């Protein structure tokens, strides 16, 4: 019969190894280490087609993941998909005219939202330039001065939805058909 101390020691070692395995599974195997938590600001974008996009799909600029898609819903007024995404707080200086596109990773890969930077859209600067050209005093009343960045609740205006393979093929085929129809009876050609 083993002494109580040895038993306790072995049980202690067992629990340490078990916890270490759990920790290893959490950190090494799963995405917990890359999970940044809920810190971030939410922006919105409306796409004509968001097929293939899922909640938790990455939001990417220049190949770097800046955030995740948090919600996808449908707007009955405009018949567009409303995609909400959370971008990490450290990326607070994305220009307001950033455009959003839905891309596919690889040939058959996952869909993700790709952001392309645009201008920072300083309305005061625009007004000053316009006033200088027209030779009048700049009127900055009611305009938002300073560079504009994406922030909590802003909407990305320039979007392009996913490319659906069937649509592309249909477009391609109809173009082929219209160019062939001039030749008359295209089906008879082998």
């Amino acid at each position, binding site marked *: 019969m083993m002494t109580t101390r040895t038993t306790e020691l072995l049980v202690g070692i067992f*629990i340490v*190894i078990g916890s*270490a395995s759990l920790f290893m599974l959490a950190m090494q195997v799963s995405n917990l280490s890359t999970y940044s938590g809920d810190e971030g600001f939410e922006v919105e974008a409306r796409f004509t087609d968001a097929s293939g996009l899922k909640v938790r799909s990455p939001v990417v600029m220049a190949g770097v993941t800046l955030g995740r898609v948090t919600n996808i819903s449908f707007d009955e007024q405009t018949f567009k998909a409303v995609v909400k995404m959370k971008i990490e707080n450290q990326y607070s200086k994305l220009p307001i005219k950033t455009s959003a596109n839905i891309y596919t990773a690889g040939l058959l890969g996952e869909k993700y939202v790709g952001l392309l930077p645009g201008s920072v859209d300083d309305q005061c600067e625009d007004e000053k330039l316009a006033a200088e050209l027209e030779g009048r005093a700049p009127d900055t009343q009611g305009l938002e001065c300073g560079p504009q960045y994406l922030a909590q609740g802003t909407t990305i205006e320039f979007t392009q939805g996913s490319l659906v393979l069937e649509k592309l093929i249909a477009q391609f085929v109809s173009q082929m058909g219209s160019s062939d129809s001039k030749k008359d009876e295209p089906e008879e050609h082998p």
Partner: protein
Amino acid sequence: MRNSIENLGHKGLDFFQRLGRGNILFAHILIGIPGLFLRPSLIIQQVFSVGVLSFVIILVSGLFVGMVLGLQGYNTLVKFGAEESLGVVVALSLVRELGPVVTALLFAGRAGSALTAEIGLMKATEQLSAMEMMAVDPIRRVLAPRFLAGFISMPFLAAIFSAVGVNGGYFVGVGLLGVDEGAYWSQMQANVDYEGDIINGVIKSFAFGVVVTWIAVFEGHDAIPTSEGVSRATTRTVVHSALAILALDFILTALMFGES
């Protein structure tokens, strides 16, 4: 004709009686558990005999299951030029299914049968009755610590199984077959979800731990106090545990991964 129907009815009644006794025993054990924390040495002793002694078989089977997954996964994936996804295949199948299920099956064979035999023999040699004579509740003193030990040990064993299996797959895939090391881990991390996969796997192993130790403890306590009865009870533990694990696994999988 009449005899066979009577026989059927007898078996049905028997089944429900056993089910009822099992549930009453379960409730008794649950009532007995809080008092155990006053005497942690009882739990430690049982975690040793239930968990630590199952450690080696879990370690070795985890390693080999992981290695086989690595080999088989590689052979299939390489046909599609997707051998970079080997890490995902190995990790997901281990964490979601094989880790909890195979661990529970091995646990039922290694620890569950031992529990049943031990308690059954205690009953056959009237040690349990002797305890009652001394005003010691055998359910609290003998059954509850064993049940709690199984409940504690199972998730740890399943986690060890999965972790060792992932490393076994790594050893075969990266070490022997030449899958890219970075792709193995990064694809795994990108596709295994902490809450969705790891936590659900742990919840599964908790559920299996409860079911296996409950069946083992009940069969031992309910055994006919003869050597033949104990041997039958031990067999029943392994068979019923295995069936319960697989059925429960289907239900849990449908609940956890069904909608996505």
